[in-house]
């Protein structure tokens, strides 16, 4: 005869126990185990293998092309092909040639400014979107997405008949008698490039900010208001910090897209419509210099990586990659 209850076969919990009652809030792990046993599901070991497809995908489509590009950046290319002669000449050329340095700085400047402008436009839009309900929200989202169902090139190209000499704006201003000659400065300059880039990338900023704003518990805002915070303070101390991961995510996406843009500057930038992306493209498309093109590309990758790492010390870029969970 047993004096203490034995664990049951099924549950492991004693039928009766003279010892103190077990903790009524068992650890999550114990709870999971108990649920598994109740449902009859047997654990099959640590499911690391589930990472397989993702890791494979990253290796094949992420790391391998990058490594191949890295390897090729040390090779030699001519118009007649690329040969695997290891040398540092391509990187030396990137560093010492003024053209590439200038283009790099110009491109980073344009990308930063585009990101800032897109943020200024997108945040209010995202905020408005997060406050709408029902059909109005659905309609607004549809209106925002609609232009993005077309091609990127078309979204850049569409500015030509709007901003051109005989475009919609000039024709309207002429018809209204506001101007007597078409305005040439609307198109084919850096301003037009900014306009095109901001328009094309707005969605990439609006969407993550909207998703962050959507997750904010309205009770927090109500609480802040009840405690006497003015709207500006509520925004500064509650809304903005909670939507920060979305802001960072949008900024990083827009910055990365802008820094590698080459269609928009080509179409809208006029005679000086060139960014670093165009310089890279010309190496691949015009003179078949894949090795130097790879070196130019990897230089950009390295600089962007350094910028991200440096900025992560101050603006918490890691939030973007951890979904806002610091641990």
């Amino acid at each position, binding site marked *: 005869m047993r004096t203490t209850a034995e664990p049951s076969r099924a549950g492991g919990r004693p039928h009766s126990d003279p010892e103190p009652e077990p903790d009524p809030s068992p650890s999550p792990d114990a709870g999971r185990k108990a649920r598994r046993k109740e449902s009859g599901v047997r654990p099959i070991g640590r499911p690391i293998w589930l990472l397989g497809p993702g890791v494979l995908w990253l290796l094949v489509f992420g790391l391998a092309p990058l490594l191949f590009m890295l390897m090729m950046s040390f090779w030699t290319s001519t118009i007649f092909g690329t040969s695997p002669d290891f040398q540092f000449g391509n990187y030396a050329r990137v560093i010492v040639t003024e053209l590439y340095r200038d283009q790099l700085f110009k491109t980073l400047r344009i990308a930063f400014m585009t990101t800032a402008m897109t943020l200024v436009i997108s945040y209010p839009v995202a905020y408005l979107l997060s406050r709408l309900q029902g059909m109005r929200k659905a309609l607004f989202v549809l209106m925002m997405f609609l232009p993005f169902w077309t091609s990127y090139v078309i979204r850049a190209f569409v500015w030509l008949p709007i901003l051109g000499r*005989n475009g919609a704006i000039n024709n309207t201003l002429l018809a209204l008698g506001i101007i007597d000659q078409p305005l040439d400065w609307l198109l084919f300059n850096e301003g037009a490039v900014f306009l095109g880039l901001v328009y094309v990338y707005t969605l990439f900023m609006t969407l993550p900010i909207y998703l962050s704003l959507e997750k904010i518990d309205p009770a927090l805002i109500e609480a802040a208001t009840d405690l006497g915070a003015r709207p500006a303070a509520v925004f500064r101390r509650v809304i903005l910090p909670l939507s920060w991961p979305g802001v960072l995510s949008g900024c990083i996406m827009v910055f990365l897209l802008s820094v590698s843009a080459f269609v928009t500057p080509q179409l809208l930038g006029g*005679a000086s419509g060139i960014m670093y992306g165009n310089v890279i493209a010309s190496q691949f498309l015009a003179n*078949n210099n894949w090795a130097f093109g790879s070196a130019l590309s990897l230089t950009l990758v390295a600089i962007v990586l350094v910028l991200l790492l440096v900025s992560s010390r101050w603006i918490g870029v890691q939030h973007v990659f951890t979904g806002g969970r610091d641990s």
Partner: protein
Amino acid sequence: MNKSLSELTRLTGGHPTDRRTFLKGAGAAGVAGLAAGSLPMSPALAQSASVVAIMPGVFIPDPARPIVEEMSGVKVENAPYVSPTDTLAKLMAPGGTSQYDMMVSLTNFVKGPALGASDGDERLRALDMSNIPNAEKLMPLFAKDIVTRAGKTYMVPVVWGYDSVIYNADEIPSDDELTQSWSVLFSDKYKGRVAWRDDAHGMIMVAALNQGHPDPVQMDESDLKEITKFLIDRKKNVRTMWTKFGEAVNLVSSGEVWAMYGWIAMRAALQRQDLNVTNNWPTDGLLTWHQSGFVPKDAPNGEAAERVINAMLSKEYGQKLTEVTNYPSTSGEVAALFDEEDQRKLGFDIVDRGVKLYGLDFPVNIDKWVESWNTIKTA
């Protein structure tokens, strides 16, 4: 289908073409081309060989395709075409000589690397000229450009053309002295109304010709610096630079610019919009080029590809190609199918025009040219 096609090809065949017949033929050919595309293939064609070809789509327009396919008995499947650089890259890539059956690309660009340094290095198949009898009827201007080595033939020019200034004659009078040369693209007179092509090769070439360089391809670094300086100085007159066909046509048709570096097909497209657009014949140097048909060394259907090249050299195909795209065929029999006025407009008489003809050859130091061009754009 065969009957209607042969009727179409006979519309102007063998006789000088007047304007009415020219238009009628082009229109009917367009309809027939559409019809041919929608009808099932004849049993003979369905059972025949097919070739995978890399060539600019404009060189086998829909109305001309049935002519080539009927004549050769070979179905032509076009692989995506990007550029001469890309075509060459595909040929030179590992296994590239067996991926495609035929290619058409800029002769002077491709021939060096495709032939290799010496006899035996060729990445091209030596053509069996008995399958290409039409090569004997090439225009004398291009007969000398058939690419041979050690008694074997590797490339045959099939299409030729020229790059010039395309301009709106309503805005820039044709009797303006500037229209007689490339100067119209560089002069202050049309500031803000001209477009350059965003292309190192073409633009540096015409700037050098305009500045009196006798042979731009051979420019050394100091010459290149001078031309770079000149283009940077002249850039202030440029409204924009175009990269693609449609973009260029739109620039002129929308009135954004009045003159630009342009291609034959752009002139044709703009004239079809009833615009008073024409091209000049720059005395400082008309840029001429030709594209050759060739077969990669290990092409699976080499003989069929040779039959296609032969059909592309026929007068029937050449006539249709010229009518539809304005690009002239290299066949010596095609010019005579057009009346004198059309021959002049199409450029069949370029040898007699007295303008300097300069082949769009490839500079050895293209790398420097591209870098200079990026410097010009950055400035």
